[in-house]
Every structure is written in C-alpha cells, then in structure tokens.
C-alpha cells in the first residue's frame, strides 16, 4: 500500500483521477497494472476499484441492490453479482442492513458500502481517495481494519489521505506531495528519520518563564528551542541523560516544570518539516475552501 500524503490542493485527488482513467493527463504517461491509462483505459477499468471522497452509492437503492448493480456493470457472469453482493455485505458487516435503503445508512456504513462496491470485481488495484474523511473515530478504526484485511489478501492499494496517522498506520510506503510534486518518499520510519532524532518536550508551569527556560536549555539543544503556548520543544543531540540534564538546568534557573518527555519525531513533524506547514494548517485551508 502506497499513501499519497499532502496538503489540500497538492494534487492527490488529481493523481488518482488520472490513474483511474477519469481525467486525461496534461502530459506524460502512466501505467497501472501494466496498462496505459489513456490508450488501454477500457481494459484497465476492469482491473481497478475506486472508493472516493464521497461515498458514491445510490441512496435510493438498498445496499444489496447497489452492489449487484456494480457487479452487473463489471459484466460479472450471471448470478455472480448477487452472490458477490451477499458475500461482501457479510464481510463488511452490512448483512442486517442489506435490504434497507442506503439513505437510512450512517456515514460509516455508507463508506463501508462504497468500499465494498470498489471490491465487487476483486480488482487487483484499488484506489482509496480519502476513505475516512469525515468519519467518527470508531468508524475510522473499523474501516482501517477492513482495509488492512484487504491489503493482506494481496490487493495493491493507492491511498490518498490528509491524516498522518492514517498513512502511518496503513501504508508500507508514503509519498509526501506538495504543489503537484513528490517532495519526499519512503516508509513512515524513513520519513521520520529525515526529520532528525530525539526531541524534548517541556510543559512549563507558567508561560511567563518561557524566556528563562529557553536560556537554560539552549546549551543542550541541538537546534534553538521553539516555544508555543507553554510547550517548549527542542531537538536534543543525545538521548542519554537528556531529561535529567534538562530538569537540573530548569531547576537551577527556577523554572517550574509541569511535564517533561522525550520522544521520537512523529509523522506530523516530518510533514511540517517537509512541506513548511503543519498538518493543522491543512485542515484550516480545507475549511477555508468550503
């Protein structure tokens, strides 16, 4: 599974749309499952499944009817669409809701049905375009488990996401893209390593003591400490003794400590370093666009 991770407007969805034969590329060429996306589009369509940002299922049909319709449109042999629909409904825990109109489904159920629809023809390549955007945490977790089960079965998956934890959890390999270009790629660990080593987080008892704290810790910081909202962050050059050292220095300077911890960088940090803005900014931008 490859994840495309990037801020909004980075070109994630455009990339998926080109690869899923929905959009002609401005230039260059692309092959999916060995087939050229433009010249062999028709053959390619029977090899791919697409689950989109919108749960693309028909609200006026039941869950079972939706899947059967997709099966017929993939031209599965007679009887197979119905059999396959039953199988997928069961696997996606929708059997009880199978004969209910999709209009009555919850957001999580719709996404599961959407994912099931993408899998009807057992495509070797699956595109998941922001599959969990807008879902509650419980539904996200469920969907992740389902996706993981399918990757284990040998499906190649291209996932786009704006959630770092999603890429971190699901993907073998991550491409960070910004402004239509890949700016970094590798496994989650490799990306974190690019950002650097250990980091010390100190929560101060009082924000007023920030300057004193920065001055006290500067000698052991690998880079100048950054301070935001009472939380002081700084990379440290070595792990051993870093906390004891920091506590001693802050004590000597008379700075009160509420919490102190040492951590490896998160994918969040990698994202920040690579794109020049934090993941939260991405969310804000997205809101702004609406």
């Amino acid at each position, binding site marked *: 599974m490859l994840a495309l991770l990037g801020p909004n407007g980075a070109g994630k969805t455009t990339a998926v749309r080109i690869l899923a034969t929905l959009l002609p590329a401005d230039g260059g060429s692309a092959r999916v499952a060995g087939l050229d996306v433009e010249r062999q589009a028709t053959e390619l369509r029977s090899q791919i*499944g*697409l689950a989109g940002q*919108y749960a693309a299922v028909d609200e006026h049909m039941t869950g079972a*009817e939706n899947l059967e319709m997709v099966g017929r449109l993939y031209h599965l042999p007679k009887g197979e669409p119905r059999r396959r629909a039953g199988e997928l409904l069961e696997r996606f825990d929708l059997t009880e809701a199978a004969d209910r109109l999709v209009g009555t489904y919850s957001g999580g159920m719709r996404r599961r049905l959407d994912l099931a629809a993408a899998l009807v023809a057992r495509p070797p390549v699956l595109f998941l375009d922001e599959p969990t955007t807008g879902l509650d945490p419980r539904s996200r977790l469920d969907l992740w488990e389902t996706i993981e089960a399918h990757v284990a079965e040998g499906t190649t998956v291209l996932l786009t996401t704006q959630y770092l934890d999603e890429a971190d959890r699901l993907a073998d390999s991550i491409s960070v893209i910004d402004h239509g270009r890949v700016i970094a790629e590798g496994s989650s660990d490799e990306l974190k390593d690019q950002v650097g080593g250990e980091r010390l987080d100190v929560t101060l008892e009082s924000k007023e003591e920030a300057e004193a704290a920065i001055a006290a810790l500067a000698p052991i910081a690998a880079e100048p400490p950054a301070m935001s909202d009472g939380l002081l962050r700084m990379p440290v050059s070595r792990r051993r003794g870093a906390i004891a050292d920091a506590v001693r220095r802050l004590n000597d300077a008379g700075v009160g400590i509420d919490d102190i911890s040492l951590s490896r960088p998160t994918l969040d940090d990698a994202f920040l370093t690579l794109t020049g803005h934090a993941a939260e900014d991405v969310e804000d931008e997205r809101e702004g666009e609406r």
Partner: protein
Amino acid sequence: MNPSASFSDTLVLARRAVMRIVRAPDLLLAYTVQPIMFVLLFVYVLGGAIETPGFDYVDFLIPGILVQTLSFGGFATALGLAEDLKKGLVDRFRSLPMSRSAVLTGRTLADIATNSLSIAVMLTVGLIAGFSFDAPVADILLGLLLLLTFGYAFSWVFAFIGLASSSPEAAQSLGFIFLFPLSFISSAFVPVDSMPAVLQAFAEVNPFTIVVNAMRALFLGIPAGNDVWGAFAWSIGIAAVFATLAVRKYKRAVVR
C-alpha cells in the same frame, strides 16, 4: 464495447431510474397530478377566453398540451444526472468497464416509461373533459409514437442540461427557462395568428408548432401537409444533436 454489453448496461441503469420513482412515489406526482392540473386549468379556466375557430377548445388543447408535457418529461433525467454528478456516482460509473453512454441511455429509456404514463393519464382526463379523437386508429397510434419520440428527444436535451448545470436545482430551473417560452410561443395553446407579428414569425418555425400541428392532424383528422414528417425529422434531429453533446459532456464530467 460490444453492443449486447452496452444494451445490458443500459437496462441495468434504466431499471435503477425506474426503481427510483417507484421508491419515491412523490416524484410520480410530476407525471400524473401535474399534467391533470394543467389540462383542467387550461380547459376550464383559460379555455373559455381563447378563440379557436373550427375547434372546441378541448380538442384544440389536448394535442398541444400533450406535446408540451412530453417535452418536460425528461426533467427526471436532468435531476438524476445532476444528482449523480454531485454525489460522485458518475465517477464510480466512469471508472467501471461499462458502456460510456449507458448512464444516459438508461435514464432516457426510463423516461419513455414515465412519459407513457403521462400520456395515458392526460388522455383519460382529456376524454372525460370532452376531447374526442376524429382519425383512423393507425393515425392515432402514429400520433402516440410521435409523442414518445418527441419526448425522447427532449430527454436528451435534459441530459445535456443536467450534465451542464451546477446543481440539481439549477438543472431544473434551466430546463424550465429554456422550455417554457419555446412551448408557449407555438400553436400548443392558442392559434398562432392571434400573436403579435414577431412572435408569430417565431412560432411558425418553432418545432413545437410543427409537432403540435402534426399531432392535431393525427388525432383530429385535419390535413397534415408535411407536418408529420417534419415533426419526426425534428425529433430525431434534436435527439441526435443533444445525444452527441450529452455523451461528450459525460465523458469529461467531473465531480463538483
């Protein structure tokens, strides 16, 4: 794409469109109650004030109002397509190894079913209100075929509108803005020679007038001239042009 696969795709999607109406029967009002309402309003409210030399108004009206109603019958196609675009279903369909035109041919085919229902309802109400056929059965049947053909042509106009507009609501009002004047500035409701000269000139070349005149010829037995052939030619021409435009638009359709 082989023809039998295209045809089966079309049927799958026509079935979907029909099911939609069966599931949400309120949509059915547009095909039944609305036409009845129009027939009654025109016959009993406006009819008394409209002079139609040589005809009872109800006889004059029924062929005209049938043509107008049928031209609007495709609105469900515009609504449905605009909704499919908005919900991302068009993306799903376009990513499937199915016929490129089946989403459109399926919906327009389903319109034929609902249009047939509208014709039946309106003729029944018309007959009750005093309309009477005055033509051989073969002509009447040809008239019904013309109505369905004309309605089918406008389903393609609506398919194009549905794909070209920004939302289901916009699709609906666009359709009305476009079709209302076209259908009214014709011989459908009043004799053309009662209009001001400019409108008369437009009404005389308006395909609606040609189709309405053909329908009067086929239902009421008045001489047709070239109107019947003209009406079929216009219907087939409109269908061909708008089907081409709509399919081209569909192939490039993007989620909004």
